[in-house]
């Protein structure tokens, strides 16, 4: 996808910044252009984007740059937090009526996936021990009732249908039927319609007024473009929706429509359709959606991990040690432990967008090397750790034996350490180009 590299682009924008100081307006502004483009490519509505950018800029300007994060990552973090907040922060579930049956009514444009998702909901609630009844109120599309019947059969849920009679009457009758037959949930499938089709919108209103659904769920195709705003707004204005089901999220769409719909209706996304099978219905996770819209894989997880593990005070100390050239093997060990706390190295690297496997091959990370390195360092005496130049051939032999490694491994480690020290010299010489430690893996 073209914007997988948002993080990289932001890094490039912030290249000139050192690791310290505050983000100023100019820095943030150029970064916001990248964020804006990423959101627009994801089909987030333009006006929603504008509003978001304003909010994010306000928050980002003047922020202290944290030691544990690069400025680029920090901006992404803010963007992500704003996106997540806009999408409702936490998950939102369907409210089960205290006095059954719980009535859910599905509405939406043609081809959004209402019938399929009526089936998916039946499957989902059945697993939760509910006893749902599907109601076929799409009397217009050829074979829509047949489709619902087949879907119903697959998920073991009866379908209430009265052919192509008036859908309002069908819905009302279904409600009575459900009450009489102890169904505790009514899932009403309606015909797909254009939001500008007054006549059909009136019909939906009549169905609503006839059965008073506990929730009206708007089914929206995740691939919808800028028009998602119009669609959501008119359905909401005319019917008052309570939540959204976002479908076809198993495609490669970034799903910016989710944000638009949420922004104009203020109603939460409750479920997402994630596959062809009728079990493929998931509860919506705002945070996951945020990173998807940004097209960044799981970079946020990486950021969070880095934040949690790379204690900023420790990092500062480490940097000081590097500068004053008192970086010992003990410090090296400590750094390794920090990295280890972040999970497997290749996991972390694979989560970073833009890093492709080709590049990874050049880096050659061997996670197994980390505990081995630890073992080697721990097999050294305190004296040796502080002054590795002491380590002669016989000491090497002892260390190798003590750590269960080979002498070559000990040599390798000492070499890596020397490289790091060399880097540290450069760091001192060039007045900290990047401003933070780079591990010599």
């Amino acid at each position, binding site marked *: 996808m073209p914007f997988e590299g948002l993080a990289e682009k932001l890094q490039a924008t912030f290249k000139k910044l050192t690791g310290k100081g505050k983000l100023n307006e100019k820095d943030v502004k150029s970064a916001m252009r990248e964020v804006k483009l990423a959101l627009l490519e994801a089909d987030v509505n333009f006006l929603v984007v504008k509003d978001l950018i304003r909010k994010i800029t306000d928050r980002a300007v003047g922020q202290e740059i944290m030691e544990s994060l690069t400025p680029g990552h920090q901006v992404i973090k803010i963007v992500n937090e704003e996106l997540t907040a806009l999408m409702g922060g936490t998950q939102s579930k369907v409210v089960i009526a205290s006095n059954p049956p719980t009535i859910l009514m599905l509405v939406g444009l043609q081809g959004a996936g209402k019938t399929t998702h009526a089936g998916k909901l039946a499957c989902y609630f059945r697993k939760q021990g509910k006893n749902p009844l599907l109601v076929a109120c799409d009397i217009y599309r050829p*074979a829509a009732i047949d489709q619902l019947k*087949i879907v119903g059969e697959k998920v073991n849920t009866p379908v209430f249908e009265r052919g192509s009679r008036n859908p309002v009457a069908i819905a009302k009758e279904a409600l009575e039927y459900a009450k009489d037959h102890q169904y505790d949930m009514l899932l009403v499938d309606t015909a797909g319609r254009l939001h500008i089709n007054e006549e059909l919108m009136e019909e939906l209103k009549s169905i609503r007024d006839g059965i008073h659904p506990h929730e009206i769920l708007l089914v929206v195709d995740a691939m919808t473009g800028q028009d998602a705003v119009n*669609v959501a707004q008119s359905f909401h204005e005319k019917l008052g929706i309570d939540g959204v089901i976002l479908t076809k999220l198993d495609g490669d769409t970034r799903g910016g429509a989710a944000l638009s719909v949420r922004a104009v209706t203020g109603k939460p996304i409750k479920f997402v359709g994630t596959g062809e099978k009728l079990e493929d219905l998931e509860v919506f996770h705002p945070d996951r959606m945020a990173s998807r819209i940004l097209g960044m894989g799981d970079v946020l997880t990486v950021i969070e991990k880095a934040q949690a593990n790379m204690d900023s005070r420790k990092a500062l100390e480490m940097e000081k040690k590097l500068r004053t050239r008192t970086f010992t093997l003990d410090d090296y060990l400590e750094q390794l432990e920090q990295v280890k706390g972040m999970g497997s190295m290749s996991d972390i690297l694979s989560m970073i967008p833009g890093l492709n496997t080709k590049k990874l091959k050049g880096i050659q990370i061997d996670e197994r090397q980390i505990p081995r390195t630890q073992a080697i360092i721990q097999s050294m005496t305190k004296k040796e750790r502080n002054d590795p130049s002491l380590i002669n051939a016989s000491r090497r032999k002892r260390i190798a034996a003590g750590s269960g490694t080979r002498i070559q491994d000990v040599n390798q480690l000492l070499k890596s350490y020397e490289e790091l020290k060399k880097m540290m010299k450069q760091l001192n010489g060039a007045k900290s180009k990047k401003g933070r430690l780079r591990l010599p893996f």
Partner: protein
Amino acid sequence: MESDDRKKKSFFSRLKNGLTRTRGNIADRVDELIRYYREIDDEFFDDLEETLIMGDVGVPTSEKIVSSIREKVEKEKIGDPSRIKDLLKDNITSILKRNTQPLTLPHPTVLLVVGVNGVGKTTTIGKLADRYRKEGKKVLVAAADTFRAAAGEQLEIWCQRAQVPIIRHEEGADPAAVIFDAIQSARSRGTDILLCDTAGRLHNKKNLMNELEKMNRVIDREFPEAHKEVLLVLDATTGQNAVSQASLFQEAVGINGIALTKLDGTAKGGVIIAVKSQLDIPVYYVGVGEQTEDLQPFVPEDFTEALFES
């Protein structure tokens, strides 16, 4: 479903009607810009770009259009914003006119209809079947969407309306086998046009795309004397993902043309400009309503005109 006394409007006015809100978003906004700006400056171009993006034209294509207009403005020293509208129209039309190879339907032709879920493949086939039969062609429909529940039934109803025969297997059958049978049948009936419906599939699902490739191979192998057209159905409400859809379907089976459906909503279908600009695929048809005759050949000038006419 619509009442029969529905006023028969010309196609053009219906397309225009369908695009009313679009105009509210593109044309009106351009007019607004023209009224607002005394001279053409950077900010004007930024606003123009925004307008296009709001019409689903997408960032790269909008940038491209605006920069080429900017170039022209600078070269010809155009200072009057009111001339921008014509430049914009010309620019969009020229993108849409790129490779407008018409759909050819010699005897016999196989038309394989593909697309993601819910774009209107089955409905489009129903409309096409009716259209071709009325043109005097012998049409046969193959129900190769054996996956979605009741897809076959839906198609069968359309075929009854259009009075054309249909080849169907059970739900869950191998779609390539349906196509195989349909080809044999088409040959013995002397069918002019064989329309093949396929199951909606998201373009990033490798196994489903492989299945489509298999159908495509069966057509090539079993019906070599037939002219083959692969029609991709795109939903006008779709955003930038349409570009990805077009390019991945193109990669898998090779697309000859596009049908752009659901233009009767408020959706702009602006993404077709992005698709045209990035991929060289002709647009054959546009769908502007639920009636059979609402599926019409695509005319670039009309599309742009409908977008801008006030």
